[in-house]
Structures are given as C-alpha cells and as structure tokens.
C-alpha cells in the first residue's frame, strides 16, 4: 500500500512538485548557487549543544563524514565519553574515550561508581580565533557571517593553525595536503538548511543557531539556561555553547 502510493508520487507527483517548487528544490539540493537571497551581513552562526540530550549514537559523526567526505581517521566532529569516578580521597583523572571519533558509536557501558556522559565536539567557530590569527597568508578566516573556513586553494599546509587550535579541531587533509576542518556545513546553512550533524541528531542535542536572527530560539535558551563554552580561559570567543557541561570536560 505504502509503496504503491509512493510510486504514484514519484512518477506523477514529481512533475507537479517540480513545476511548483522545482527551482527551489534544485537550489536546496543542487550544485548551482542560489540567486542569492542570502546576505552575509544578516547572520552570525553558532551552535548550542545540550549534554543531557546526547546519547552517543554517533549519528552526527557519520552524517558529517558523508556530507563532507571527511577523510578516514580524521574528524570534523566527534563524540567523547567521559567517566568520572566518585572522588573519596584522591582527585582522579576522568577516563575519556572516543573510539574512532565515535563514528560507529560506543560499546555499551556498564554502570560505574560515579557519573558518565557524552560530549559532542566540533569546531567552536571562535570569533577571536587563534587559528586565524596565526595563519601566515590569510588562507583561514572568520567569514562575515561568523564561520571559520579554510581556502583550500590558498592554504600552504604549514599547519600552524593546527597547533594554535586549543580544541584539536583541525587536521591536514591527506589528499589535498591542505588544512581541513568543520565548515559548519557552510554549503547548507547558506541555503536555508541546517548542518548535517544537527539534521541527523535524533535527540535534538545539537542546534544550529543564528545570533543575528531575533527570532532564533538561541536567545531564549541563553536567557533561561546556564551555559558554558569549552576552555573559556582560552578567550577565543567560542560560539559553540554547551548546556549542562561538566567542569571536567576539556
């Protein structure tokens, strides 16, 4: 029943839909750039991550990898699992793991004497980014809409930016031999879509936000929640905010 109905849709409905929204569909999914309704000055992108919603499924890592053809063994986003034992006498270091960036999720964890939780990571798209500061040629930059990008045709591959990033978000792409990183799915968000990781997060733990949009839920979230960024003492102007982040997370 379902299938036959879908068939009718694909054959008959396709024409109808393409006639009405065809151009938009092509824009949303297609290769050619839009006629440009997108204005750089109207946006300031970031993300909000709720630790209490992350289930460590690794869907974001897989989605990112597929959307952006991330080379194997490198990660634009990854998930860490923290285990912090109860501290009776000595202060113990947290036990952290991220098997292959959690691209296949995590092996199940038996209950421990203490707390455990998942922490998704990605480029913090810092406003005062140390990686941009050190780039000798201007191959990496903060775009006017607040996304830290790399110009693949201009990067020398000196990797000074990789050293300067406090969060370990950059790597040298083994094929292009230029530095690569999370683009906050710039090719998607500038066409009205959300990022691949946010789109595919089953629990809504990740939310793409636009600080310049007065109607964006980010404003309500920041007003009513206690949030934190990673390594705030680095003063990088990180724009990926975390709700319910434990102090032990680095």
């Amino acid at each position: 029943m379902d299938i036959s109905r879908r068939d009718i849709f694909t054959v008959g409905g396709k024409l109808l839909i393409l006639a009405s929204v065809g151009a938009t569909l092509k824009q949303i999914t297609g290769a050619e750039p839009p006629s440009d309704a997108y204005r750089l000055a109207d946006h300031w992108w970031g993300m909000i991550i709720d630790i209490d919603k992350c289930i460590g499924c690794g869907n974001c890592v897989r989605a990112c990898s597929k959307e952006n053809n991330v080379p194997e063994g490198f990660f634009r986003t990854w998930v860490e699992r923290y285990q912090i034992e109860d501290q009776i006498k000595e202060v113990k270091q947290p036990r952290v793991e991220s098997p292959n960036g959690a691209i296949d999720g995590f092996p199940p964890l038996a209950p421990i004497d203490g707390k455990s939780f998942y922490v998704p990571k990605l480029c913090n798209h810092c406003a005062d980014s140390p990686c941009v500061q050190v780039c000798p040629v201007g191959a990496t930059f903060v775009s006017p809409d607040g996304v830290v990008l790399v110009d693949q045709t201009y990067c020398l591959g000196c990797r000074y930016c990789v050293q300067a990033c406090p969060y370990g978000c950059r790597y040298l792409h083994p094929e292009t031999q230029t530095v690569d990183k999370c683009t906050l799915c710039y090719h998607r968000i500038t066409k009205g879509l959300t990022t691949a990781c946010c789109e595919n997060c089953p629990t809504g733990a990740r939310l793409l936000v636009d600080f310049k949009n007065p109607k964006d839920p980010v404003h309500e979230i920041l007003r009513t929640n206690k949030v934190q960024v990673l390594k705030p003492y680095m003063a990088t102007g990180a724009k990926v905010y975390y709700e319910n982040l434990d102090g032990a997370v680095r």
Partner: protein
Amino acid sequence: MIPGVDGFMYPNEVELQWSVLIVLYPYITGLVAGAFILASLERVFNVAAVRPTYRLALLTALAFLLVAPLPLQLHLGHPERSLEMYLTPHTSSAMAMFGFVYLWYLTVVLLLEIWLEYRTEIVGLAQSTRGLKRWIYRALTLGSYDVSPAARRMDEKVGYAVTVIGVPSAFLLHGYVGFIFGSVKANPWWSTPLMPVVFLFSAMVSGIAAVMVLYVVCMKLRKTAIDMRCLDTIARYLFYTFVIDFTLEMLDLIHRTYESDESFRSLDFMVHTRLLFSHVILQIFLGTLVPLFLLAANQLWRYTEGTRKAMYMTAGALTLVGIFAMRWNVVIGGQLFSKSFLGYTSYKMQLASREGLVAAVLLMILPFVIFFVLVKLLPPWQGGKAHEA
C-alpha cells in the same frame, strides 16, 4: 586502542603535525644568529682575540642562513604556494613576519657585511683569476673597482654600522623563532614569554659552539696552528652565554613546577617518560651540565694546550647535541601530549619520506657543502688584521 597512544588524545591529535624538519628550522636559525653574534663580538665589542674567527663566523652564518628556509619549505603541504607569505602576509601571524625578518637579515645584514668585508679581495681576484671564476668575482664586485684607502675607510665605517644593526637583527631573527612557539596559547609547553629569550640565548650558545668546533676542524684540515688565545676567548664567551641560557631554562622549569597549573601533571609525566632520554639525559645532563662543567673548569684551573683543546671540543660537540635536543624537546615534545591533558601520543620518524630522517640528514649536510664552496670562493684565512672600531 590506537598504537602509540596512552590515555586520551583528541582524535585529530594522534598524528604529529610538525616533524623533525621543524626541529631543524630553529636549530639552523639558532646557529646563524649565534655565529653572527660571535662575529660582532670582534667588531662591535672590540674583542680582538676572536679576530681569527670573524670571517669564518660570517661565512658559517651565511651557509646556515641559506639553508634555514629549506626544512620549512619541504615540510609544507604545498611548497609552491610559499610565495603567498610575501604576497599577502598576515600581519598578526608570527610566521608571516618571520619571512620579512629573514629577508632583512639575509640581504641588509649578512650579505652586505660580507661584501664589505671581502671587497678588496673580490676586486683583486676579479683581476687575477681566469675563466668562470673571473666572471663570478666580476659579478660580485657589482661593477665597482674602487679599493682606494679612502673607499676602504668608508667600507669600515659602513660595515661597523651594519654590524651594529646586525646585532639586534640577529636577536630579532631568533627571538622571532622563539615567539612562533611562545605565542601559541593553546600549548602550555610552548606558551611562555621566556620562550624567545631562551631561544635567543640557546641560539648564541649553539652558534658560538659551532664556530668554535668549525675553527678547530678547519685549522686541523689546513694543518695550521690554532690560535689558543682566540680559542680560550671563544670558550669563555661560550661559558658566559651558557650560564645565562641554563639559568633561564631552569627558571622556566622551576616556575612551571612551582605554579603547577592545570597542564603540569601532564607535562611532568611526559618529561619523566617519553622525553626522559632527550630532555633529562641529552639536553640537561649531557648537553648542558657536562659542557658547563668542562668550560667552568677552564675558568678555574689552567690546563695544558692539548687538554684544553680536547675539553673545548668535547664541550662544543656536546653543546651542539644538547641544543639540538632542546629544539627537539620543544617542537616534538610540544605535540606529544593531548591538549586535553589526558593522554600522550608518540612520534614515529619516517626514514625516506619527504619529512623523514634522510631528508633531515641531507639538510644538515647541505650547510657544510655551502660552507665549503663559500670558503673556496671567499677564503677567510687572510683576514688577520683587526677592525678599527
């Protein structure tokens, strides 16, 4: 678990980004800066005893300076794009600014000073030699054959001025290399305002040691008597700078240990495990304490000429190894621990790859080849007369 990794590394941190070639880069620029400062001792600070090494030091500096950008170049993912560093230099980047400091130092300081120093000989050789050599010397005269006493006096004055500019330039050159590392706030092993100063003094130590060793080796090869007054003086200055260098390094160590900030547990563990050999044994013990002891003994007691030579050569060679270990510990050590302070990775040096051991060894031989050519072209042995400051 990933082989070579203990604890937790951010997944992109497992592979080191800066290899042995980036160890060579501060090592080589350090030798340049140190050798130049030794040369300026004679010229600016009137230490006449080191005159026999003046020209040798200049040529050493030039030979190493010409090689200095090569390890960087070879390390780049896209060496063909390196010119962008001069086309669109990013003013907030220490690395971009280094390009200009390098050019300034190469052209305005070193080449000019060498040209002025050798001008009389170049003009003479342009007239006395034949064939290809004649053409090379004629090009080097830049078309001027005026070596009248008045013109020579002018060269002296300008040369002095160039050396005076050269000393802060040499400081700048290597201080800048230190700043490239010292300004990375994400990396606590690097991030310290002492880094440029420590780099500078270790540069002077390595440069002085290199010229000292080169001088003795050259004299042995030429079967010429070694000027012991010169050698003693160089050793004395090596001792002074080494004391300052060691004090600064210990200050850094004590400060880190006393403050014991967030990174300390991680760095302390690293020094006691993965860096134990290269840091504690090579850098601090063999590369610093032993040569310091040998040099200090010469300040306190009098030894025979043969013993002194042996002690100086041992101290010089160990110093060169020690400073190399220091660069290694900074560059490689700074990448062995996770910025999460929760784990460690390891560096597996490749052998025959673009950034491997063979490339590094060849790059270390190259300055000596250049030095050999320079010595053939501009013999440093005749310059016995001291400069009039």
